[in-house]
């Protein structure tokens, strides 16, 4: 659990239940009535719900006697994971920054890439295997400037999260999503 989430839980136990959750924002709400903690809301993934329930139950005996999660639900999703895959490419000043971005995406996006690599001038030959032909020139231009490129192939729906994190949360100079393709195993 990161420091922001831990601080949020501390605030909740202190009675400040109006603060939005640092990850799920206003999608969830919490009520503390005497020593009964009630979590409500809609989460995107089953794993998120399980983690939140685990965190809540870990607080039993620390100012909470009972936890009610009957109104904490997972949004019904029609998307089928694994139907299509997509490669996301982002360029960074150097390999170290790209590595930080990679760790950040894996940790916060909670995605499991089908393939991933950081490419710079030292391993430029891997480009042909990971990047579709149409985009190789774009990537080569960035490598020629001394930049490092993070390449991640992920499930099509997870690609929204990956590109969003790379665009908004990391120091990427440029990013690109290769159009969705059939899974690489097919």
């Amino acid at each position: 659990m990161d420091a922001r989430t831990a601080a949020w839980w501390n605030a909740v136990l202190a009675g400040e239940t109006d603060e939005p959750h640092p990850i799920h924002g206003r999608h969830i709400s919490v009520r503390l009535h005497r020593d009964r903690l009630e979590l409500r809301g809609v989460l995107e993934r089953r794993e998120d719900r399980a983690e939140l329930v685990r965190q809540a139950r870990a607080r039993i005996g620390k100012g909470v006697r009972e936890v009610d999660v009957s109104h904490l639900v997972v949004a019904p999703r029609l998307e089928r994971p694994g139907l299509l895959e997509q490669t996301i490419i982002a360029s960074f000043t150097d390999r170290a920054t790209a590595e930080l971005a990679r760790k950040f995406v894996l940790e916060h996006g909670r995605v499991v890439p089908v393939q991933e690599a950081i490419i710079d001038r030292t391993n430029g030959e891997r480009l042909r295997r990971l990047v579709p032909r149409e985009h190789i020139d774009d990537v080569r231009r960035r490598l020629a400037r001394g930049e490092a490129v993070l390449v991640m192939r992920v499930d099509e729906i997870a690609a929204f999260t990956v590109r969003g994190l790379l665009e908004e949360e990391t120091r990427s100079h440029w990013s690109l999503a290769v159009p969705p393709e059939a899974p690489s195993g097919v």
Partner: protein
Amino acid sequence: MSEIARRKTATMRGTAHDIAREHLSAADVARIVGPGVISGGADNDPAGIATYSVVGATAGYAQNWLLFLATPMLIVVQQMSAKVANVTKTDLATLLRTTYGARVATPAVLLMVVANVITMGADLLAMAAAVQLVTGVRHIYLIVPMAAVMGTVTIFLDYRRMSRYLLWLVGVFATYILAAFLARPNWSDVVRSTFVPDVRFSVDYMLAAVAMLGTTITPYLFFWQSSGEIEEKRGVQRLRRTNLDVGIGMVWSNLTAFFVIVATGAVLYTHHAHVRTAADAARALEPFAGQYASALFAVGIIGAGLIAIPVLAASSAYGVAGLAGWRRGLGRPARNAPHFYLVIGISFLIAMQLAISSVDPIKALFYSQVLDGLIAPFLIVLMLLITSSRKLMGDFVNGPITNLIGWAAAGVMVLADLALVYQVATNGLPA
């Protein structure tokens, strides 16, 4: 063949487009409410209703054909906005920046932001004028509290969730359909003007044409649609559902617009009355609502404003944040995306300032739509170039019919813009 078996077969064939194609049952269709339907609701903002009222009152049914022609164009342009986001996994502003660079993306976004802020100011003014109609409180005293409430709601509450409920308020405009029938228009004139183009070379006609196209095929909706898809995360595997969502939203939007023109045309144009105030515009509802026309009109305008003003502010914020690479999204809390929400706050402040300055509300609404009409073709062309690129879109590249309708939309809007510029240059602006 079951859905899973069909997709397995498609997977063996291997094209992403085939794999993504989804069969929709009647129950699926009934459940479709997404960013497309909300965009359709936001398309008929107070500025839109005022524009259609002015068009109906000044030109009668003469421009019905243009609205009819604009419907497939609007659907195609909005579907392209949705598709491009689902394929590239990013919003329109970011895509313009990463594809064409800041030199192209910045003016495109900033022009949209300027038009949005003017429209927001005009919409606020229209909402205040509508409240004045029923309460008698002078509209100038209503603008600041209304802007403050809407700004707070947009910044601190989950607007996307709320807008699904607010859509019901816009349902009030369905009364225009009844009002149009009760006004007993000459239906043969209505039908003829819908299917037979009637082009007149006058400044009034061209202004009305550009404003109508601008309020129908509106730049801020392109940005809103693409950002909505990013927040919904439906992906290309739900593209058919997305297209249907967009189609339903846009048909409903233009159907309402059509009946606003018919109602105002029948009630106001035939009596040579002009739309200069909210009370004038409300008169079109009199055949249906009688003495309650003003109240009904006010509820509709307030509902339309409550949906559209936050959409306008958020579209500007999505555009600017996409240009700058800031965190963005109405699903995020304000402290998590401060720059994004700052743009929303500043938009509200400037719009409020515009609204309380002594501007003629109906003129402000109308000319903001003219500005939209001038910007839209530029954005449509950029979007067409992106969605026609196999490199960027892969198997989801535009088909020939989409390209044909998309280029026709850009062409019709450019022609209307050129005709307007020529008319204004030779005859000047009307009083």
